[in-house]
């Protein structure tokens, strides 16, 4: 098994045999004295080209460890700017980076960590238009994105270009890690032929994430990437590693190549990139189902009406822990409990439902209208809009 893998690195431009400078020998000495890496392995690492999709929670530890290890060329793809809510887990960034493009802040940090390597930045959305060209320049792709459309795009582009996809994903305190797209091994679509419909699976923004979890998962992705480069050990090909940080347990499941897979089987039905937003049933980043045709009230209108003493019952459909962060003194019934707690509401009173940003409460309004509630509207933009337009003392989260 030891040398079964091993990605042919440095294939795009065959340079003269690489060597290490005196400074590099010093820098990588803890690798060099280890037989599993040694000079041969370190030179492979130096010639390797790894593309990191996303420089967020997973990309942060990944980028740091790949740069520290001496991966010769690291590409970073991210369209986002650093936000203060990122700092809880995206350890590439500091407080002074807030507002900077992530790729720029990340590149500065990684160049400072290791000036011997090349960092390429792509301050852009990965798309069906640019993915194949981008992937062609690298040996290994590491998927650290946060949404289904990009996950399927990365997978399909990896299969089409024949590049391994070091995959990691997280939710709250649980992670999944594997290597997809290795020749002969399964791909993401073998495991999950289709994405969940929008709204059925909460995103990290809705579900939260333990800050250290992407640190652990991204670090495992870095380890797998380095193993693929040096061709040592047993990579996570055909194995799905599940990690639960609360139970502090790892489990391993077998992954099989699906003989009927639409992209990686002998007779694929999908041979070029598609519109992934459409495939996942959504447009752009905002995943969850958007119910649009329900009556709405703006936070300013609501304030005016409450101030003049109108009898309005506020229904908060967020979760208990969100209510504890901030609230409008409303009656709390989390969306998931609404159907069985509907009797707590008086349909003769006027009700305004709200959540954080207005999406969950739109579903609540739609449901309640179906249940016969006539005087009900949705607070447009949720408690975030209330904070922006009415009361800045209400914290945003």
């Amino acid at each position, binding site marked *: 098994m030891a040398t079964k893998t091993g990605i042919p690195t440095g294939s795009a431009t065959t340079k003269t045999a690489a060597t290490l400078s005196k400074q590099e020998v010093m820098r990588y000495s803890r690798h060099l004295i280890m037989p599993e890496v040694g000079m041969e392995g370190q030179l492979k690492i130096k010639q390797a080209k790894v593309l990191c999709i996303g420089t*967020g929670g997973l990309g942060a530890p990944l980028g740091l460890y790949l740069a520290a290890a001496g991966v010769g060329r690291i590409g970073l793809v991210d369209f986002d700017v650093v936000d203060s809510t990122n700092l809880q887990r995206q350890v590439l960034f500091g407080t002074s980076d807030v507002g900077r493009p992530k790729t720029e802040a990340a590149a500065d940090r990684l160049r400072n960590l290791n000036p011997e390597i090349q960092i390429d930045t792509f301050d852009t959305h990965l798309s069906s238009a640019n993915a194949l060209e981008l992937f062609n320049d690298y040996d290994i792709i590491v998927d650290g994105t946060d949404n289904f459309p990009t996950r399927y795009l990365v997978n399909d582009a990896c299969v089409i270009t024949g590049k391994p996809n070091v995959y990691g*994903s997280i939710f709250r305190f649980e992670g999944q890690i594997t290597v997809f797209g290795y020749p002969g091994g399964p791909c993401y679509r073998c495991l*999950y032929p289709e994405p969940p419909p929008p709204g059925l699976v909460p995103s*990290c923004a809705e579900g939260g994430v333990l800050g250290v979890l992407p640190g652990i998962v991204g670090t495992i992705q870095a380890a797998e990437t380095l193993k693929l480069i040096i061709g040592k050990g047993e990579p996570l090909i055909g194995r799905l590693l599940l990690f639960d940080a609360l*139970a502090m347990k790892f489990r391993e499941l077998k992954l099989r190549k699906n003989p009927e897979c639409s992209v990686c089987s002998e007779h694929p039905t999908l041979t070029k990139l598609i519109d992934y937003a459409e495939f996942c049933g959504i447009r752009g980043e905002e995943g969850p189902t958007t119910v649009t045709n329900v009556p709405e009230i703006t936070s300013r209108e609501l304030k005016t009406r409450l101030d003049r003493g109108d009898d309005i019952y506020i229904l908060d459909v967020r979760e208990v822990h969100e209510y504890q962060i901030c609230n409008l003194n409303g009656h709390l019934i989390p969306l998931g409990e609404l159907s069985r707690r509907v009797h707590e509401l008086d349909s003769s009173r006027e009700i305004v439902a709200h959540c954080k940003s207005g999406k969950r409460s739109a579903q609540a309004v739609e449901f309640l209208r179906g249940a016969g509630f006539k005087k009900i509207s949705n607070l447009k933009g949720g408690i975030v809009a209330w904070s922006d337009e009415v009361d800045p003392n209400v914290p945003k989260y």
Partner: protein
Amino acid sequence: MAVKVIIPTPLRAYAGKQESVEVQAATVGEALAALTGKFAELKKHLYADDGRLRSFVNVYVNDEDIRYLQKDQTAVKAGDTISIVPSIAGGARD
């Protein structure tokens, strides 16, 4: 036979917030039926309208995917662990 069903984090909200549930069953299909019998809300998260397991949810008996065993008919014995493994996409942007 008593088998353990491990509930993944995203679905725990629909299963009384439990990490795992013990059910009596001789096949995977029976185990999942017992589970959704206990927690009705789980049903729409596991099954599509046509009654088939959703394509973003996989079910394992111990470490094997039931798609490559006998699917719903896969036999389970006392002490087996059934895992429900849905796709999760998070990479922790905000």
